[in-house]
């Protein structure tokens, strides 16, 4: 994993685990905020658009977010498919193992949530806003699973790697 990054003239150091954890926490806070906004839009239709337009708007933003996250995480944590030395490979395998554990649960949750999208005896008894939310829940869970698939292995790697030394210290 690289420990120093350059954005124009600004040098960003990621040797410190605490700093890497702040970064991961920030990214996931943004994601959760976005998920909350999307859920709000779906249930309240706050933008006064038709349902199709709202869905298209959410999907378009999700696409942009996917690409942005993929670029940022690959840039910071390194390409997870690239060949590293044995320790790096071990750490990546471990990160993938832990991340895909959650992916499995996400898929299962989406599968069970799809029950609410079909006609069933429970949803007609619920308030309209909650019903609308439950209908969209499987897609939302699948979307969250895709986010986890794209970001979680790198996030686990960034979160768990201990403090590192710079190239200057090593030479």
């Amino acid at each position, binding site marked *: 994993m690289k420990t120093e990054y350059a954005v124009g003239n600004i040098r960003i150091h990621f040797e410190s685990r605490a700093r890497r954890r702040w970064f991961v926490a920030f990214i996931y806070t943004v994601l959760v905020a976005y998920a909350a906004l999307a859920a709000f839009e779906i249930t309240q239709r706050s933008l006064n658009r038709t349902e199709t337009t709202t869905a298209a708007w959410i999907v378009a933003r999700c696409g942009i977010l996917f690409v942005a996250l993929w670029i940022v995480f690959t840039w910071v944590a390194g390409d997870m498919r690239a060949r590293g030395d044995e320790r790096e490979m071990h750490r990546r395998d471990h990160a993938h193992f832990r991340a895909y554990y959650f992916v499995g649960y996400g898929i299962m949750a989406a599968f069970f949530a799809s029950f609410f999208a079909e006609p069933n005896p429970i949803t007609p008894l619920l308030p309209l806003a909650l019903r609308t939310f439950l209908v969209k829940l499987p897609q939302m869970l699948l979307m969250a699973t895709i986010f986890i698939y794209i970001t979680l292995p790198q996030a686990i790697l960034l979160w768990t790697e201990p403090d590192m030394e710079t190239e200057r210290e090593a*030479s």
Partner: protein
Amino acid sequence: MNRVVDKVPGESGLYNRIAVLRAERDISRQELADALGVNYQTIGFLERGDYGPSLKLAFQIAEYFDLPVEAIFATQPLKPLSRQVYASSQSPEKGNS
């Protein structure tokens, strides 16, 4: 007198002498990493005992330092190298007297 180096072995549970050997031969982490074909950070993790190397890497390290594997890695705390060398140089004289 025969006190061992009381150093916690880190996550790997292995004690090693890589840092001592490197300092003794004036080799930087980067140089050792280049010779072994690993990342310089891996050398740091090995030295701190946070990573246990594969058998292949352990043998590569032993080959690099021209020492047996058991002289570099151990599951028990290692005695200081200087004391061990001095003790071995003294033992034939003790035997003669």
